[in-house]
């Protein structure tokens, strides 16, 4: 542990990338969690996903670039991220996790950094590589994902002060909780749609009656 660590908020994520294991303990010790920085990272996650879909070279681009719809990108990044945070918080508070919602949010956002960097590199490189050189892209993106996953596990371990097995189990159950949350969300949307249609029908009925 580095005891004389004095870092500005924006430098913490990059320090964590270089120190994926003890770095999160430092983060916790020094209270380096910063919501603003993590929101910027989540926004970057969203923007980079859109950029990757739109600007990957023709040889590697499998997304439909003919029409642009922002909703799927939004739900697969920002919505997914906050579902993750909420699911993890609601699960781990019940199992002696020490992380607050804010800290979980920051930790998760900081853990995304390697993945975002790999996205930038692959998107740029896909414009100068050929199909037969696709191995480089796969390697870089896999490296980014693996690094992010390691950071996420170690970050969750530090923020909740769990043992490694407990962290892994909690992450698996977080995924289950996410599925449940999304399922309820869909149900809720469908229900409100029904209610809305009900009131709208009454409204049209009244309009026809009195006009």
């Amino acid at each position: 542990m580095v005891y004389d660590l004095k870092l500005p908020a924006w430098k913490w994520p990059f320090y964590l990338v270089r120190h994926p294991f003890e770095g999160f303990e430092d983060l916790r010790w020094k209270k380096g969690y910063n919501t603003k920085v993590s929101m910027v990272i989540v926004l970057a996650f969203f923007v980079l996903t859109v950029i990757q879909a739109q600007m990957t070279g023709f040889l590697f681009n499998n997304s439909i670039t003919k029409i642009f719809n922002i909703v799927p990108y939004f739900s697969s990044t920002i919505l997914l991220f906050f579902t993750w945070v909420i699911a993890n918080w609601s699960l781990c508070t019940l199992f002696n996790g020490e992380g607050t919602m804010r800290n979980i949010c920051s930790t998760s956002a900081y853990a995304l950094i390697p993945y975002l960097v790999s996205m930038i590199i692959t998107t740029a490189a896909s414009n100068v590589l050929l199909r037969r050189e696709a191995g480089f892209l796969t390697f870089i993106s896999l490296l980014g994902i693996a690094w992010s996953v390691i950071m996420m596990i170690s970050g969750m371990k530090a923020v909740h002060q769990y043992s490694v097995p407990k962290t892994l189990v909690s992450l698996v159950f977080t995924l289950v909780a996410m599925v449940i949350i999304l399922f309820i969300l869909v149900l809720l949307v469908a229900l409100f749609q029904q209610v809305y249609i009900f009131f709208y029908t009454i409204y049209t009925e009244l309009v026809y009656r009195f006009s």
Partner: protein
Amino acid sequence: MFFQKKSTKIIATLVVIAIVFGMLPAVIAQEPYISYGYDWFFDTHPSQSAYIVDRVITSNEMNLAIPMNKPEDLFVYEDEESGEIIVIIVDTGNNRLIITDENFDSVRIRDEFYYSADYQAQNFLLEDTPEYEARVREEFAKIGKVSNLKNPTGIFVNKSDDGIRLFIADQGNERVIMTDLSGGILMEYTKPETTTYAAESFSPSKVLVDNGGNVYVCVKNITSGSVKFSATGNFLGFFGANRVTRTSDAILNYFLRFVLTKEQMLDRTRPTPVEFSNFTIDNDQFIYTVTEKGTTIDIVKKISPAGRNIFANQGIDDSFIWGDYNSPRVGNKVYTSLIIDISIDHNGDIYIFDRESGKIFQYDQEGHLMFIFGGKGEQKGLFVDPKALETLNGRVYALDATKNSVTVFKLTEFGGLVTDAMAMFNRGLYTESLQPWEEVLRRDANYYMAYVGMGNAKLSVGEFEESLKYFYMHSRGGYGRAFKDFRIDFIRNNFDRMLAIALIAIGVAIAGATGIDVLRKKKKAKELYALYN
């Protein structure tokens, strides 16, 4: 006087006439179907018609005393002596053949068949046994006797040295017969009497003959492929069976068997291969088969002499979709293409006939979609019950069993242009095909293959950037090839600049890092100084 001059009067009259004629509904020979193609994202876009209906031949036009009744097959070939195009229709319901020329003037009806004096008994491979002798005697006793067709469903014409030979799949009599044009039966191919042929029945539906005189018979309910006979009538085995569907499907079926009812299981794809429903042979002696339903792979396949599907080698793998990409939904029913017949023309282009939508799809030999025409309906150029398809010299002959008619399509100017350009393209004459493709693009800026053709043409003359523009969103393979050359070219031309930029960048990075280091040390020293003083 309203008009001052006579000339003004004439002009006014002409104007009035022009207006009146302009208001009349314009008479345009328009096809009842919409020609279209697909773009990179599999969305349709309308295209110019490549084929228009030349004429529709019905029983009435041929002056048939008994009208056609559910014809099943037709064959078109060019008579070498007269140069006339001969069309033979298998009139299944009336158990006869209708042989006619292309103009359908001289119509001959062949409804009586007899065993010719040259009749040769099929070689049964029962050598020198009393049984064999009796059998041969029995066979030769048939000579001169009448033997008519019963529910014939397939025909093939082979031009041998002895003259034209017709091969007719006589399904009701469980045989395939080889006859001459006058109706004399020269050979009978019946159910093979070997243990290899395990089925009880022999109901041949289609037949074809290769250059070596081998006869391939497509038999209903035989899943091991077509039955192959030698010219002398020996049973040679089965040829070109479909592959079994994927293993994952078979495993899934195993588990579904516990859940689904028997009827539901029958609707699923089966782990035994499905028999193909029709086949054809091209000029290079490759056999193509089509399978109508019950399968997701091998719907259209090209068989090598070893019996393998060689479309896979040409980049047409199992995920290739023949027919429409998006199955149109009408009411509750989803229409997926059911390919009923296939024909290959002199360019090697593949034509397939979709029973479900009545559309004819033309592909080039590499599987690039060229044209889509036809459809379902009563109008000329549409079909109610599509049955058979033949092509000859740029014309397409399509048989309808309910309308009892043969529809003859001919190429439009646009279609001819594309066909020529495509033929050049497939022979590798990219530079020469530049001109025709440009003309095609002038007429239809959405024509997909024109972009691929242009890209190849530009690539072959070394205009990489132009080539990339044409290949973009049209061909990934082409784009890759063009980009490889473009990249090498770019690096070669700009290597000095790139090297300079890289060196400067490295220099700046080193200088910057050193500078930052120096600053940091100074800051730390200052802090330490402040701490101790």
